[in-house]
Every structure is written in C-alpha cells, then in structure tokens.
C-alpha cells in the first residue's frame, strides 16, 4: 500500500537536509531517505574513512591523472566529512547565472545569508589555528603579500581537535544534519529514514518513489521528489529514469587540490589545531585559492609523495613538517557513468594544460612562502624525482615545465556540475514533472570556493519554490 507525504527528499547532505528542513518548517510533511547511517565519533581516521566515506574512500577519477574524490555516505552527507569551510558564491558567477531563466542573483543571496546564519559561520580564532597556518601567514608577511586571512567555518564549540574530515570528536562542526535536521527530529510529519535507498522513481504530477531498507520496501506518493544524492550519484537516477533536459553526468568540475610540505627546525605538530584555518586568493591568478590542510597522524605517511626508506626519513621528522594546500577553479571537466550500477560509478577527468600550469605555479608559490617563513626544505607534491628543494632560489630556478598531470599527487573535494542548472535542470532545479535536484550537481560551473554554502542556498531556494513562497 502506498504512503503519501507532501515531499520526498533523497539524500541528507547540504542540499537534502536544507531542503527537507525548509519544507518541514513551511508546514509540509517530509520523508527524507538517506543511504548512510548516523556517524559516531572516534579518534580513528582510518575507521572513519572505512565507515562513512563513499566506497570506503576508494572513489577516484581517472583520465590523464589519478584523482581521489572523497564524498560522504553518512547522515549529513559530505558535510560530515568536509573541513567545514564556508565561502559565499562569488558575485560574478551569480550574475552570470542570471542567463538561466528563473534565476536571479538578488533572489539567491538571502538564502546564502540564511545558510551562513544557520551554520553559525565565524572566522577561525587564532588560538585554534594550526601552526602550519601561522607559518603560512608568517611567510606571507615576510614576502609583503597581503590578503592572507582566517577562513570562516560553521562550528559550535570547536577546540581544534583536527579531525574535521574524520567525524569531529566533539560534534562541534555544523554539518547538515546538525544544523538542519536535529532541530526537527520528532516533529510530526517529519521522518528521516537512514540506511534507505531509492530503488525507483516515477515522475508526474504526483510522483512515486520506491524505497528499500533492511526492513523492506516502501512505496511513497508525493507532490514532488527532491534528489540530493550528490554530484556523483544523482546523475544515475536521472539517466536511469530518462529525466532531465539533457543527459546528466557530464560537465563534472572538482577543484583539483593538493598540498606542499615544508620541514622546519621548530616543532610544528601539524596534526594539532584546525586543519583548514587560513586562506589566500592568489594575488595574480584568481583561479588559485590557497587553504590550509593537514592529516591526522595515522594518515600522515599516506599523503607524502615518498615510499620506503625515504618515507621513513621524512616520518622520523614528522613533528617538524608543516603543510598548506590549494585548490584550482578548474577549466578541466570530467564525467560520471555507471556501467555496473550506482554503487561503483566510473569517474573520468582530464586535467587540461591551463589547470596543470596553475597547479605548478601554486606549488612554487607555496614553497616560496614556506621558505620565507624559515623552512629548511620544501617538498612539492610530485611523484617523481626532484620534488625536494633546499632553498627558495633552487625552487625558483627549477624547471617544472615537464611536469605532467600523472605526476601530481592530488585529491579533489568539491565535485560539482553533473546536473547543471540551465543544462540538465531548469532555473528552478526541475528535472522533470515532480522531480527536482538540490545538491552539488546543479552548480552550473566550477565555483572556485568551497561549495557547501552555495549548495545549501540552492536547496533553500528550491524548498521555497516548492512551498509556493514568492521569490
């Protein structure tokens, strides 16, 4: 027998949680289905990756490079495993998106503000900034480069446990389920069903979904379905059920990212403090954004571009190694396909020459900053000989023109665009009658900033549209 609710939301990340909450707050009955389960805190990063990362952390795009792309499969989605950094959508992009019928920048900005408030976004205070961040700022000062700033994050009670990406042990990060779902749990007409998957979807004036969990299947009829399964999974459902103005799964942007290591004489203890505490937009190349990053001790060795005895030598001095990272607003694009179903998507991505040049430029810049801060050695994230430099002059003179995409040790944390607004979904994020999308897949282009606030805003805007609230 079919159940009836006003709205079904699939996925509990930034988009799903915000949409579900806003719909409920607007008086609608909502069923939110999430494939993952609630997370429990622990101090074991490897365990967290195995339990709460999609495919146990083994998702990677391939093409002319290897690009791991971790996402979350847990209540709260990827917001449960991200760094918590919040940045608003660049205004020039909002203006450009007005070319999509139905989208207006001035109608979007209030939702950015709402998400900002709900996540309690604030700058990282100096006392919880990592030593790596402070060395980065010191290097900038020494070089006379302005613009370095504390990043802003959604948190409530953070003490710098350094495990933002591995389930905060204090539950201080304002992830999607904490900010949007927790206040509504127990409210009549609002249900969150964990470990529940979407099996089928029939669009129409009153769309129907079939959901499956360990306890069986449920048929649910509603006024609209909001797909918020994430950039790498929502396209599966659109492709499978033939939904969307164009086929979903292309135009994948990811913000390829990496980090530079630097050895200092002093103790850095880079596993302490907020990992992503400081930032800088490149003074000359606006597609490069520098942001702090470091790994917990149990993952430190994994991320160094060394092996064997050479790795051992670096790990022996690990407490003196600082790290800082960057990401690129990519012109490169990729795609996602599902030859064996949604559980093992095939991700492809080719790093184009322009983005490759930005990667090497940014590495060299970070190395220069670290030397200016007093580093004894700098390690670039290159899987090839000649990645270690002992002076700024040596780094400056190094010929990196033969670096290939395949040499880079990179990751990407912001997959976007596979159901882009204006291409696959319309200006109101509609894919088909009664079917809408509200996750990173609708962001029409590479953002250049951490995307969660943008995704929250898209979802809040959609919810108000579904409630009939005037834009």
């Amino acid at each position, binding site marked *: 027998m079919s159940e009836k609710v006003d709205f079904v939301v699939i996925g509990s990340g930034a988009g799903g949680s915000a949409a579900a909450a806003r719909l409920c707050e607007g008086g609608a009955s909502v069923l939110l289905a999430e494939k993952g389960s609630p997370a429990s805190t622990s101090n074991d990063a*490897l*365990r967290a*990756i*195995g*339990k709460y990362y999609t*495919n*146990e952390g*083994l998702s*990677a795009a*391939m*093409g*002319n*490079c*290897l690009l*791991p792309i971790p996402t979350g499969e847990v209540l709260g989605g990827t917001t449960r495993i991200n760094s918590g950094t919040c940045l608003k959508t660049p205004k020039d992009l909002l203006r450009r998106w007005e070319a999509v019928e139905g989208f207006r920048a001035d109608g979007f900005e209030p939702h950015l503000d709402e998400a900002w408030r709900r996540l309690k976004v604030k700058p990282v205070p100096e006392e919880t900034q990592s030593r790596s961040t402070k060395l980065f700022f010191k290097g900038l000062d020494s070089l006379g480069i302005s613009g370095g700033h504390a990043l802003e994050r959604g948190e409530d009670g953070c003490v710098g446990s350094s495990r933002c990406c591995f389930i905060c042990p204090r539950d201080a990060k304002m992830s999607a389920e904490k900010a949007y779902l927790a206040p509504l749990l127990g409210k009549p007409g609002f249900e969150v069903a964990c470990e529940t998957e979407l099996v089928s979807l029939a669009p129409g004036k009153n769309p129907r979904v079939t959901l499956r969990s360990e306890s069986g299947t449920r048929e649910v009829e509603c006024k609209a379905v909001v797909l918020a399964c994430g950039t790498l999974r929502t396209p599966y459902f659109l492709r499978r059920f033939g939904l969307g103005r164009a086929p979903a799964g292309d135009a994948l942007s990811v913000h390829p990212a990496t980090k530079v290591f630097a050895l200092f004489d002093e*103790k850095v203890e880079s596993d302490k403090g907020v990992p992503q505490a400081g930032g800088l937009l490149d003074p000359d190349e606006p597609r490069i954004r520098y942001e702090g990053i470091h790994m917990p*001790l*149990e*993952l*430190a*060795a*994994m991320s160094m*571009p*060394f*092996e*064997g*005895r*050479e*790795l*051992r030598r670096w*790990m*022996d*001095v*690990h*407490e003196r190694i600082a790290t800082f990272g960057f990401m690129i607003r990519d012109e490169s694009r990729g795609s996602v396909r599902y030859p064996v179903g949604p559980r093992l998507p095939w991700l492809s991505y080719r790093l184009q020459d322009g983005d490759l040049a930005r990667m090497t430029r940014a590495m060299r810049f970070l190395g220069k900053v670290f030397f200016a801060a007093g580093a004894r050695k700098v390690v670039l994230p290159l*899987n*090839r*000989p000649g990645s270690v430099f002992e002076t700024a002059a040596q780094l400056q003179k190094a010929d990196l023109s033969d670096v*290939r995409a*395949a*040499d880079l040790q990179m990751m990407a944390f912001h997959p976007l665009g596979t159901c882009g607004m204006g291409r696959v979904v319309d200006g109101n994020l509609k894919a088909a009658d009664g079917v809408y999308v509200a996750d990173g897949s609708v962001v029409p282009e590479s953002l250049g900033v951490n995307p969660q606030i943008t995704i929250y805003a898209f979802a809040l805007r959609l919810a108000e549209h579904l409630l009939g609230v005037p834009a």
Partner: protein
Amino acid sequence: MSAVGAIVFPLARSYAAHAGIEIADDRLRADLEGRLAGAGNLSRGLFVGAALFVRAAAPVLFLGKPLGFSALSSDDREELLRRLQCARSPLLRGLYLGIKPLLTGLCYTPEFLKRAAEARV
C-alpha cells in the same frame, strides 16, 4: 589469521622491515586483523589485489626480476616502492595507493611518530 590477512601479512612484514621499523609478528598480525575487521568488502578486495600485485607481479613489471617482494635486495625493494609511488599509470598507482594507507597505518602509528619525536629531544 583471516584469508585476506594471510595474503597481506607477508607484504606488511617486509614493508616494515624494509623501512627499518621493528614490529613483533604477533603485534603486526593483531593490528592488521584489527584493520581488516573494520574494512569493507571493497577495501578487502583491493588489499588482496594490491598485495598480490606488489608481492609477485610488480617486481617483474617494474624491475624485470621474477622474485617475490621479500626476496628482492634492499636496493631493489626501495626502487620498486619508488616506482609504485611514481607510477604514471593512474590504474597502477591507484592500485598501489589503495594499500599504502594500510601499510603506512600499520607502521607509522601515532605511537611510532611520538617515539621518533622524543628520540630527538
């Protein structure tokens, strides 16, 4: 020992020994089994494939030497590990990097890193 553990353990032991990290066999076995118990099917499958690759196929593919990883000379092991880390093929590097967190996690534990730091004080 589990079936997966039995395949991975010889590599983990050789890897640690090569890096000069002393871990008693029973401690290494216990830590490895603990890690495997917390790993999902996908990870365990990758660990098996990667371990067999590194132990048996990689020496032939990268060094032209039909010897198991443990039987290689120290210099050859170092070169092989370097080539695995630097493999330009995304598939090969991905295969190796799939098991690297397990191997390094067993060796470079927080306790090891703290001891290394204290050793220099």
